[in-house]
């Protein structure tokens, strides 16, 4: 396995009127070629911000810590993503080696330009292609994602397509430049389960076919179980647990991961009560000391949780967790 992208000690704060707000806190992970990583966590846990950092795409008020490092491995050697500045330098991580699909497909299509023209434009921006060749590739891609009558759809506008079709068109556009890493930020959250099932199937086929790495962001653990090889669980900007998807779902170690699983409605036991994670997610301005989860943790050990940040502990192979229950607490 060779690493496609390595994220090391990524910390990102936003400058706001109310002060600095931490969105990502000392996050490290690696995605290999052809690997699908799921990223789960409550809304506001910093999933989207992390994903955008990989494309160096966060808002102007974003401040990265000096330790933050993101390395993308390309055919032409490693790229230090956070040092890219000009539009020309950034091309490789924005639609070149990295592509992104969003939760709301309308947002990624300009309303007044046909889907085809946007796909062609995108392709020509990233490769030396004639218009005719770019059109041929686009139509083929639309066909590939299961859009019927692709030549006609090519000339339509995004608003003329149904929700599921739009999502497919967006996937087609994101994949047309043959990215090495695809970032899918809640790509199925706005879809019906029926259409979600179709899109999940499509994405699985595409991984096999194009051998890309994928970051699949969602708050639905079922979707993760169906798509990912490994999963990282985020809470308040930190990765609290990471490991192979089977391990994390069957044998969750972090109280927060356990809480997320307990909150899920289960079809095989309709009488089981739904147990939400107690309490509310703290405001980003009131970041808890010590373990960031201690204000809601049902298994809190004591003062150590309130004062000392738990470090990653390897529990089993590549399964790691950041919780004092799993560290040797020094006497």
């Amino acid at each position, binding site marked *: 396995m060779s690493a496609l992208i390595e994220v090391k000690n990524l910390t990102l704060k936003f400058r706001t009127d109310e002060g600095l707000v931490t969105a990502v806190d000392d996050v490290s992970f690696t995605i290999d070629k052809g690997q699908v990583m799921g990223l789960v966590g*409550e*809304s*506001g846990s910093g999933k989207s911000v992390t994903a955008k950092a990989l494309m160096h795409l966060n808002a102007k008020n974003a401040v990265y810590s000096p330790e933050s490092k993101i390395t993308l491995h390309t055919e032409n050697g490693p790229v230090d993503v956070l040092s890219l500045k000009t539009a020309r330098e950034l091309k490789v991580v924005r639609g070149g080696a990295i592509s992104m699909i969003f*939760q709301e497909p309308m947002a990624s299509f300009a309303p007044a330009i046909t889907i085809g023209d946007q796909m062609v434009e995108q392709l020509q921006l990233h490769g030396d292609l004639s218009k005719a060749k770019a059109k041929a590739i686009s139509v083929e891609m639309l066909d590939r994602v299961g859009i019927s009558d692709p030549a006609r759809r090519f000339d339509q506008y995004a608003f003329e397509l*149904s*929700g*599921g*079709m739009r999502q497919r068109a967006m996937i087609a556009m994101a994949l047309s430049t043959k990215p090495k890493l695809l970032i899918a930020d809640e790509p199925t*959250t*706005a*879809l*019906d*389960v*029926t*259409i*979600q*099932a*179709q899109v*999940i*199937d499509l994405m*699985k086929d595409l991984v096999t076919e194009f051998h890309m790495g994928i970051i699949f962001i969602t*708050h*639905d*653990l*079922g*979707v993760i*179980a*169906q798509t990912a090889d490994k999963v990282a669980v985020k809470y308040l900007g930190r990765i609290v647990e990471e490991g192979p*998807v*089977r391990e994390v*779902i069957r044998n969750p170690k972090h109280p927060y991961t356990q*809480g*997320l*699983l307990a*909150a*899920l*409605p*289960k*079809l095989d036991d*309709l009488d*089981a*009560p*739904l*147990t*939400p*994670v107690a309490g*509310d*997610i703290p*405001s980003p301005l009131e970041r808890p000391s010590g373990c960031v989860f201690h204000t809601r943790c049902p298994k809190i050990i004591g003062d150590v949780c309130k004062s000392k940040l738990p470090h990653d502990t390897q529990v089993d192979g590549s399964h790691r967790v950041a919780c004092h229950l799993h560290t040797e607490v020094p006497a």
Partner: protein
Amino acid sequence: MSETLIKARDLSVGFKIGSGFFGKSILKAVDHVDIDIEKGSFFGLVGESGSGKTTLGRALLKAVPITGGTAHYADGEVDYDLTTLAGPELKDYRKRAQLIFQDPYAALSPRMTVRDIIAEPLEVMGLTKTREETDARVREIAAKCRLNLEHLRRFPHAFSGGQRQRISIARALVSGPKFVVADESVAALDVSIQADVLNLLKELQRDLKITFLFISHDLSVVAHTCDHLAVMYLGRLVESAPTREVFKAPRHPYTKALFSAIPSLDPDDRGSAQKLEGEIPSPTNQPPGCKFHTRCPFVVDRCKVEEPVLEHPGDGHEVACHRWRELADTLAA
């Protein structure tokens, strides 16, 4: 023993749209629906986007005009014919029937305190006479929705998705409604917030004796929450029964397909489920015969020409499919 709170027969809602070649055309959003909602029940309504759930809910709240059929509301105190309701009686019905939007990003006015947001319906409907009375009522309902005094003084932007949900719920319930339509937007809530909201709604159903019409995309959520489940497709009710019956043995191929599409939490159970192909047809261009026939894996010639009606087989498990008897074993498996 059980009383019916809402009873609708052949209920239809059509919207006039565009001005085509032949003049205006009608979009049938709700099409000849029979529905009985028992008093005190938690009634679930599911179906894909565009199947008419919201429109049916809004029709029962008299928020969109009913264009065909009948609908009655009877809570023991009043008995209203919703098709003709007007004037002071309609105003009274607005207190008794309320809508909750299940959307954590729902617009809560940023310039009003939480107290004022919750109090607004009382003031608009003139339900309280003094500020003290309003405050008491707001505090009471806020407490039931697990919001404290500190929360009431603050502005909504400072709240998390879960808290915003509780604010919306308190606002909907402050007028003391007996019937509440809880409509979930497509973008689902986080699982933890969702579990919290569901538990809260169930508590309120028990404590305040509210009848809920719970609209959702998520069958697994409905299964955990609702006593009764109805499934809609293209404006039609295709199946309706006590939740457990539907789970044990769905009778409509569409219901079965909705179950199969729920992503399994078991990583080793990938893609075993039978997937539904294609998308829900446009309501302006509805297929003839059974509306589901363009996607149904069990379609036969008859389905393409003759529309099945909702059958009432006598066991309380209603279904609209020509082949439900012969498919029973296949679908229950």
